[in-house]
């Protein structure tokens, strides 16, 4: 990595954050920072890399931004901006600036897709084309989405200041949801998708690391980072050599990334005794899966308990399905079928293949062959993955 590439990765977000907060304008800050990087590319190779690249970039970006502001002001008919914001102290980044930038990009008054786009554009520094490719939308659509979002921030008076302590939890949970959404999008594409999509996982992990570094005591952020690392540790085992998706239980556990698992486990150990939220619980479940040496060696009773807790703090029918699977392993199919009954009756997950696969497996183990066959066929119809579909069809004919 060249010094410039390193500065782009390590300093860019901080520089954008510092300039944006002083100006109260994301686009102006982003343009100025791009110009500062262009200036760095032009001068660093000959003049040498400054001692503190971040400070150099902030000062340069600030000057570029002021040029633009002055030019706009001298345009006839342009309303005069009453106050020129004070210059940031050279080289003195406030770590708060970066947190504030993330919180502004993930403001709950913005649509979720807008939050995702803003965070990837302005915090992670992805180009519009990269974000568009990552989310499978035309570049023009993504560009418009970003413009609309920045306009809303400006015109609706979304603040560039940190919220007070009572406002922070709501804002942070929006940040976590956005980061997890970016991660999940990349995770879905891994194996088959283009690189730009699978790299969303790394971007999400990088972003979460930044938030974790700024708020090491926030146990849900820690839990989220651990959860991502656990899930990402399996990326090398999720597909066979032919690129087909390997079901979780059949994965070659020796291909799981041991380093990521060790880091995730260590993170989870630091979360302490605060209130336990959904990300920590999901990470704890992933930790138990990672601790098992084979698929038969999984501590199902403990996982079933954790899903029970998760179903209480973040109730959703999908969680209930997972809980039923765990209970089925821990206590047998009868108890699990009782848990699944309301989800089946509710109908909201009627199109959700894993529900019918879980139902089929439980019915089969409870001795209801015909019922299991119907459920296997339903799961196969709904599955969008050809390998999984074939496996489900085989189960349907063998019951």
């Amino acid at each position, binding site marked *: 990595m060249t010094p410039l590439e390193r500065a782009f990765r390590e300093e860019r977000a901080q520089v954008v954050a510092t300039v944006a907060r002083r100006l109260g304008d994301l686009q102006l800050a982003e343009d100025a920072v791009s110009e500062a990087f262009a200036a760095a590319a032009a001068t660093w190779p000959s003049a040498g890399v400054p001692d503190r690249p971040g400070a150099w970039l902030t000062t340069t970006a600030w000057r570029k931004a002021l040029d633009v502001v002055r030019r706009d002001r001298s345009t006839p008919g342009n309303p005069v901006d009453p106050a020129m914001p004070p210059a940031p102290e050279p080289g003195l980044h406030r770590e708060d600036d970066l947190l504030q930038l993330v919180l502004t990009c993930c*403001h709950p008054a913005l649509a979720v897709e807008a939050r995702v786009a803003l965070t990837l554009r302005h915090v992670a520094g992805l180009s519009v084309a990269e974000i568009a490719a990552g989310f499978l939308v035309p570049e023009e659509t993504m560009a418009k989405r970003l413009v609309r979002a920045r306009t809303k921030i400006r015109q*609706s*008076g*979304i*603040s560039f200041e940190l919220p007070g302590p009572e*406002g922070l939890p709501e804002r942070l949970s929006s940040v976590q949801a956005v980061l997890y959404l970016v991660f999940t999008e990349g995770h879905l594409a891994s194996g088959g998708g283009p690189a730009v999509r699978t790299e969303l996982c790394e971007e999400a992990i990088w972003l979460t690391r930044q938030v974790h570094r700024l708020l090491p005591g926030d146990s849900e952020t820690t839990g989220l980072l651990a959860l991502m690392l656990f899930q990402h540790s399996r990326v090398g085992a999720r597909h066979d050599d032919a690129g087909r998706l390997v079901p979780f239980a059949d994965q070659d556990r020796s291909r799981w990334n041991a380093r990521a698992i060790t880091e995730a486990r260590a993170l989870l150990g630091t979360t302490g005794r605060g209130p336990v939220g959904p990300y920590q619980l999901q990470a704890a479940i992933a930790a138990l899966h990672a601790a098992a040496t084979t698929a038969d060696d999984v501590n199902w009773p403990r996982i079933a308990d954790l899903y029970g807790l998760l179903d209480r703090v973040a109730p959703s029918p999908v969680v209930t399905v997972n809980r039923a699977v765990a209970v089925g392993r821990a206590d047998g199919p009868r108890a699990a079928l009782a848990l699944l009954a309301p989800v089946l009756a509710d109908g909201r997950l009627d199109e959700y293949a894993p529900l019918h696969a879980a139902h089929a497996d439980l019915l089969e183990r409870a001795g209801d062959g015909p019922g299991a066959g119907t459920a296997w066929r339903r799961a196969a119809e709904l599955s969008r993955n050809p390998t999984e579909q074939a496996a489900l069809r085989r189960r349907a004919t063998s019951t």
Partner: protein
Amino acid sequence: MQYLMLLTIDPDAAGSAEAAQRDDWSAYTQALIEAGIVVSGAGLQGVETATTVQVRAGERLLTDGPFADTKEHLLGFYVIDVPDLDTALDWAAKVPNVRTGSVEVRPVLPDAEAARSDATAAAAAG
């Protein structure tokens, strides 16, 4: 910055709760006044008293009832002057109708804001 808070209720959901909440309304308005952020505000007569006016091809058309035939009824509005959106949203979350109805928060155009303060200054001077 000035924000309009547009208050609506779903009459089916609200039921007769409106009258019972009279104390809540005066307490809320009082809190806004004490915070020194009220620009204006008004409660409205029931939706059955509304008349909608349109002029099409030079011809005046009157319709009995509100313009938008939605389930939600316009109840009233406040205009408040607060530093940022988050502060406005915090006030919006405390409006008495918010538990059964909803509050739409919209920034007032800066021009309108300036015109209003000009008018206030002129009134004060004159």
